[in-house]
């Protein structure tokens, strides 16, 4: 696999999740459309937790509901992202390894995006994470290929941050505390699309 790409929606939601909990670790699941060729495009993401990442019950419930959501929308779970609360930690740890191993059950390879906290400034113009892949060799390795972002992604994130939209995103933790909060963030998806069309002008 030579390259992976990430859509505006997936990147923006990841970004908003980080913005909502700047002092905590966050993680989430990345979804992509199944493809016959060897490239992967992350089209959506589901923010999962901002605390207690290693506890099984919430994770099993989340994964099961996300699986069902994927089936409804023709998507597959292809990886996850993790942002550490510690400013300087950029390498995946044992927890990330276990999660990558678990998600690989879905396919040939799973991806692990580790957020680099030095790159999340909204004026930044490079991806705010490093990509690792977990393949048949059971190792979590840095992904050597290209990473493409959809045009206008950074501008969209900047705008969303300016308008303080990060308070609108819901992760699975929020959902378990109050089931009214939609972990699929359908309303927010519409909001992000609205921003997209503005920045395209």
């Amino acid at each position, binding site marked *: 696999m030579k390259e992976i790409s990430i859509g505006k929606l997936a990147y923006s939601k990841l970004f908003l999740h980080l913005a909502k909990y700047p*002092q905590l670790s966050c993680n989430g699941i990345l979804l992509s459309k199944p493809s016959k060729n060897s490239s992967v495009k992350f089209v959506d993401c589901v923010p999962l937790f901002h605390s207690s*990442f290693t506890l*099984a019950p919430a994770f099993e419930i989340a994964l*099961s509901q996300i699986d069902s959501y994927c089936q*409804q929308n023709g998507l597959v779970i292809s990886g996850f992202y993790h942002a550490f609360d510690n400013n300087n930690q950029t390498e995946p740890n044992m927890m990330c390894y276990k999660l990558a191993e678990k998600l690989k059950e879905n396919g040939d390879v799973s991806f692990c995006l580790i957020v680099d906290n030095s790159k999340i400034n909204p004026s930044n113009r490079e991806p705010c994470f490093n990509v690792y892949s977990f393949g048949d060799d059971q190792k979590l390795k840095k992904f050597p290929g290209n990473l493409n972002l959809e045009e206008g992604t950074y501008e969209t994130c900047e705008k969303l941050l300016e*308008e303080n939209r990060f308070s609108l995103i819901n992760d699975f933790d929020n959902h*378990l505390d109050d089931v009214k909060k939609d972990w*699929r963030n359908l309303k927010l998806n519409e909001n992000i699309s609205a921003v997209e069309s503005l920045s395209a002008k």
Partner: protein
Amino acid sequence: MSTKNLEKIKNWNDASLQLRNWRDDNVRMSKETLDLWTGYIAPSINRLGDEKWLVYEQVFLAALDCQNFPIAEDCLAALKAQFSSSKRVKKLRAMRFEAKEDYHSALEIYESILEEDETNAHVLKRKLVCLKAQNRINDYVRELNEYLKLFQADHEAWLELCDTYLNEMDFAKAAFCLEELILMYPHNHVYQQRYADIKYTQGQFDLAKTYYLYSLKLNPNNVRSLYGLLLTTANLKSSQKTKEGSDNTKLNLWAREQIEKKYNDVDSDKNLIDSVNSLFQYLTIGKNEK
């Protein structure tokens, strides 16, 4: 100032009241605090009277959080002028070094405070945080354990130690921390539920089920406990004798009904309910009538 939280603030009085509420609840709303400071409070700080010193401290900490050092310096200067020999202000000076990641200077100040006042819990905790910030997790865990020997009733510290063990995937030790918390606060449904979560993660489904039930007795609306009950009874179905088996079936069904009700009560859309139902099919034992 367009955050949702600040929509209700119309004037100086609202702003100072909001700051007081955040102070009392110990909430970390750093960006909003700075917005209120620059927008309303700073121009007429003396209207606060003696409360202004608390506000200076509050804004100082918010400014450090947001790496806004000019505001931090202003607040610190005012506090130093008023309370020149205060240990509390000295601690704030050290925290400014922490914010700049100069842990060496911060620790020097903390050590000097502790020389005069060995059991100053705030400063002992700041020392711990310096270790955590430098990612020296082993040292952090060791020192946090030492701290807890002195301050056994500090529930926040127990929670922090529990979280740290969970991140290191040391579930046995994390469970121990929660046991201490449950002893101190036996009526807290969150601690019971989190303990059950850990037991489930360790594969001890029977024990997990028991604690989910305790948690639900204390708060039948705890959704995590309801899901937990569903998961544990589903996992136990294959290892049951008759009485236990039928109890598990009843609990499983009850949990399922409660969860369904929760989703219906908030008018969840069809797709979300379908997702939840597919989960039920996977986890239901006994007859599935739907």
